């Protein structure tokens, strides 16, 4: 009361902010309770021993037992992303530049189907398709393209890469085709006018203009691949395998949350790198888009 000028100011400010705070409170609460707390907990518990002290033993165990799985996971994820990128660019490019209207229509109708199929069904389908006596090999043998003696099972890293790509290509294509459709069409026509064929237009004119969208699609796919449990569980029986199934294994059979958390830490690190690249890229593009 001694300073009548200074007092009302903060409370008035607070009152002005209150509706806004109330409005975002549920969202913040949900993020905090459902995401931040478990995340912090799992990171913390990766470094806490049975007595509550700090330890790097879990990390060491995780590395010692599962180093090959971590490397395998990274390689499978990268190979999947490469395949996803190549196929999505090809499909989105054809949807944008294709000159055969019926083929474009059919492709546009077909490519989205895997979006509506859950991962577990995709895993199951891939299993019966890619196994040694699966549909793929049967077809190849029946058509005389393959000698039955050379038939081999694709239920290893190749199966994982193919399944992840099959499931994620429609998603990335959807984003990419949308972005390509909104590119100024005359930039492509100008390139063709100057002598560029369609493939060059796709790679040198269209693609650089939708680079950001492609990276977003791939980064989101990476996060999905890093978190899918059903596909590696169904496709791969032996070692090495994806980190998700190893974490599940650790928790289900040993009740060992600490090492599972340590493994989880590696997943975070991998996705953090992707997120960092993504943020850097969007920030670098900002001044241009802001115009």
């Amino acid at each position, binding site marked *: 009361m001694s300073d009548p000028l200074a007092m009302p100011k903060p409370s008035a400010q607070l009152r002005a902010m209150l509706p806004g705070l109330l409005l975002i409170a549920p969202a913040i609460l949900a993020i905090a309770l459902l995401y931040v707390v478990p995340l912090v907990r799992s990171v913390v518990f990766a470094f806490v021993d049975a007595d509550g002290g700090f330890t790097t033993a879990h990390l060491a165990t995780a590395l010692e037992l599962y180093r090959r799985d971590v490397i395998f996971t990274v390689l499978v994820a990268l190979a999947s992303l490469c395949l996803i990128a190549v196929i999505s660019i090809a499909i989105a490019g054809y949807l944008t530049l294709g000159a055969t209207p019926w083929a474009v229509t059919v492709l546009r109708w077909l490519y989205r189907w895997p979006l509506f199929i859950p991962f577990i069904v995709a895993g199951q389908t891939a299993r019966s398709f890619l196994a040694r006596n699966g549909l793929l090999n049967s077809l190849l043998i029946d058509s005389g393209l393959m000698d039955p003696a050379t038939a081999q099972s694709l239920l290893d890293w190749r199966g994982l890469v193919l399944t992840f790509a099959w499931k994620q290509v429609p998603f990335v294509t959807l984003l990419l085709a949308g972005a390509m459709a909104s590119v*100024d069409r*005359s*930039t492509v*026509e*100008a*390139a*063709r*006018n*100057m*002598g*560029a*064929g369609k493939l*060059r237009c796709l790679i*040198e*004119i269209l693609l*650089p*203009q939708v*680079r950001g969208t492609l990276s977003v699609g791939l980064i989101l796919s990476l996060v999905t691949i890093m978190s899918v449990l059903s596909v590696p569980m169904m496709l791969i029986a032996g070692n090495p395998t994806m980190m998700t199934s190893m974490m599940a294994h650790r928790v289900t059979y040993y009740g060992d949350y600490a090492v599972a958390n340590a493994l989880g830490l590696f997943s975070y690190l991998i996705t953090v790198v992707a997120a960092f690249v993504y943020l850097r890229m969007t920030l670098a593009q900002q001044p*241009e888009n802001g*115009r």
Partner: protein
Amino acid sequence: MGIEALALQGLCIRLGGAQILHDVTLDVAAGSFTCLLGPSGCGKTTLLRAIAGFAPLSSGDIRLGARSVAALPPEKRGTAMVFQSYALWPHMTVVGNLTYPLKLRGVAKAERAARAEHILDLLDLSGFGERKVTSLSGGQRQRVALGRALIIDPPVLLLDEPLSNLDAAIRRNLRGELRRLQQKLGITTIMVTHDQEEALSMADTIVLMRDGRVVQVAAPQSLYTRPADLDAGRFLGVDNIVAGRAEDPVQATTLGFRSVEARIAEASAANALTRHGTVLDCAYTGGGYHLQLDTGAEVIAAVSGAPIAPGSEVCVAVPAASLMAFGPDQMLLPN
């Protein structure tokens, strides 16, 4: 590649059931500047796109020099087009935009840089080479787009309303610049425009189009003074259309003239069309006054050096040489 003539023979284009171009036949001389002029929707841009290969023909042929290009995809035709939106590649620098066509042609890097430098000089853009095209002004972008088209030394240059996105002052400047550049390089040029002033001041030949058809092909002066029919006349600024009378110096169903040719006269002049009327409106237009007068049969627009009060009875005279005579079928009558 050298300068080549362009010949269009019986070009028809149908898009989704609608006939966009009807039997367009046109010869464009090598090294000439031709304007496709017409109101929007008349098919002039479609015609230009057909030459570049972006609008598929239903019938007809396009010949560039001695060879037919009608069946070739756009990238094989060798025409260079400047788009209305400029269509610069936003992910490349100015030099990147200029040299990409050369890169497509397998020109060595040093030569590419030298030619880009030459074009930048030619277009008064020296020092802008490393700028991003998104940081350029409209006029600068327009020049880069033009430079990108010229750098490949094309047999034919196609311009799709290249000046329509610019301010009036810049447009007037670039008009002269573009014309001088065309004459200097002697390149066969076809420009689409809906602006008759632009067409008249730049072209050697104007192709007037309406509803997907060529109405008239003529030099600017003869197009301006002798439009093929009444609609062409209206499009070219013939704002007075009056019914012919027996005492008129030229006998025709309909006579047309521009308001600048219609002047206030003291009495009926010899060898001139005269009409008496009441002044409806008198507006200052800078340097003179623009009048609307009611002759009883029609409203005539005329000019006067001095203001005249509305309601005054005046006589307006148009010299016979400025009259355009149209027959009952609205076609221009021969002199």
